């Protein structure tokens, strides 16, 4: 998950001019801490994990008046230990700006979450911040769906299970949430931060209930939920197809996969054409094509029983060959009794007819030897 974020370094976001509420939040922190920050390596910071250092960054970048109340609450939620570490992280805005702008986003989200949670008497500015954040998240999602999920998971993946991950609510329209929900968010936030920072962060107890909620950064209306379920179904099926179609293992992405599938289906259809042509050519002289060869093949269905009988026939020379091929192809060890019945019936009838006509039928075949060869060449060339 971290490497995903790192990859997003290249994306430039104009995040340095942060929204007003974020700045305000930053100012709060600063006022509280009174410049007790040192510059660390921003990269390190990004690598270590996000939201907390980011918050620091936000703090560092702007000074302003803040509210002690909010800070206090923040402290409570985040835990004083974390908060201390907050302080030790690098701060200055521009530095943050250089490194991993995208990293700004999750922490801003975190910041927003924190802030929104902390104060019930939320300023409307923060509301808008949260709303904007949501919108940004949705935009983000559209741009890079993996990133969004990575973000959510980046926030949670270390410690939490999927259920927890899903329970993290995106519907944070600010305040007005029930106490239990706040607690949930709280705990998720805290656990998120803790997973971010150090493993030693205090573990908040997980919520008792598990909501199936929209994942972080995604819309919550039923349409998008249904859409997401549909997409997951699709991807599952595509995975099955990947196993079926040879050479699809290395290809990721729908377009490439579909390409391979199309090619494969086309090639199979072409093979069928070629083979039918070949069979037509091979057996063109024989009127009773079905009665000649197929019964012999069918006779092989009951593998053991009929063989001795077939051995006695004049057309026996065909049978071993066909037997072999059919054995290979059908892998027959067990046959349903019905097929046996049918086979035996047809075989008994055709055997008699074959025994009389086999000699006459065999001769014309020699004239067609060239054609099969030509067909073979065609067949082979068609697939190169």
């Amino acid at each position: 998950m971290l490497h995903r974020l790192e990859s997003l370094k290249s994306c430039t976001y104009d995040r340095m001019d942060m929204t007003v509420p974020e700045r305000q939040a930053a100012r709060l922190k600063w006022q509280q801490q009174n410049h007790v920050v040192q510059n660390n390596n921003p990269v390190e910071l990004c690598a270590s994990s996000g939201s907390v250092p980011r918050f620091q960054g936000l703090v560092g970048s702007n000074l302003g008046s803040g509210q002690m109340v909010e800070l206090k609450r923040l402290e409570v939620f985040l835990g004083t230990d974390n908060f201390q570490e907050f302080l030790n992280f690098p701060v200055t805005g521009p530095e943050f700006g250089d490194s991993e702008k995208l990293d700004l986003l999750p922490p801003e989200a975190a910041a927003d979450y924190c802030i929104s949670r902390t104060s019930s008497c939320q300023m409307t500015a923060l509301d808008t911040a949260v709303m904007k954040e949501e919108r940004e998240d949705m935009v983000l999602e559209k741009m890079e769906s993996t990133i969004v999920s990575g973000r959510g998971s980046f926030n949670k993946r270390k410690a939490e299970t999927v259920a927890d991950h899903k329970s993290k609510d995106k519907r944070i329209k600010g305040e007005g949430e029930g106490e239990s929900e706040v607690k949930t968010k709280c705990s998720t936030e805290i656990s998120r931060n803790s997973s971010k920072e150090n493993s030693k962060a205090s573990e908040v107890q997980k919520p008792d209930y598990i909501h199936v909620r929209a994942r972080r950064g995604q819309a919550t209306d039923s349409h998008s939920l249904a859409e997401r379920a549909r997409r997951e179904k699709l991807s599952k099926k595509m995975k099955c197809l990947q196993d079926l179609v040879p050479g699809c293992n290395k290809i990721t992405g729908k377009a490439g996969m579909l390409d391979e599938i199309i090619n494969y289906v086309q090639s199979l259809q072409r093979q069928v054409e070629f083979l039918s042509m070949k069979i037509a050519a091979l057996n063109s002289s024989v009127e009773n094509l079905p009665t000649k060869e197929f019964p012999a093949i069918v006779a092989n269905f009951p593998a053991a029983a009929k063989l001795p009988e077939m051995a006695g026939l004049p057309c026996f020379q065909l049978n071993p060959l066909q037997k072999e091929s059919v054995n290979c192809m059908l892998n027959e060890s067990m046959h349903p009794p019905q097929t046996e019945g049918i086979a035996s019936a047809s075989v008994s009838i055709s055997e008699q007819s074959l025994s009389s006509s086999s000699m006459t039928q065999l001769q014309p075949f020699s004239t067609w030897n060239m054609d099969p060869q030509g067909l073979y060449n065609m067949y082979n060339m068609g697939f190169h």
Partner: protein
Amino acid sequence: MRPHSSLKQEFLKEWIKGLQRCSFPKKSILERKKAIKLSADIAMASARNGTTCWSRALISSAAKDGSDNNHLVKQILGPESDRPAVENKAPARQASVCKKILKRSCRIRRRGRRKCGAAAAPSSIAKHLVKKRRQILRSLIPGGEFMNEICLIEETLDYITSLRVQVDVMRSLATASVRGTE
């Protein structure tokens, strides 16, 4: 997925039955080839017993009144009573679905024209590519025009397995015939 061997046996059985029913025209190799292929296709489709969309579509399209190999198909299908039912269901369903698809495609075409200018975003280009390929896949699979995406992928899966079975059986038969001539 169904085990291959049973599917192969079923397919072979049906194919043999079909071939036995149709009178082999000795005129040209192409005619024979057509008959063989047709019987193989129908056998493949009937091996599914109407459970999949593509099989029904295949049979119904082969048995259409306007098609040139209609007589062959009738012969191959023979006196089986369930076939007409299958045929009757499919066209009606297809007609209604056709209309829906037409409407959808008109809407999409209009939207597509509007979007043409703003198609620079990579995601939209990717979507466009995927859509194109889906269209191609739809044209390949019998009855594909009437399916939504999930159905399409499922049917593709089934169709690919059936095609594989068909190819295997035909190939073994061909090699057997070749060896028989030597």
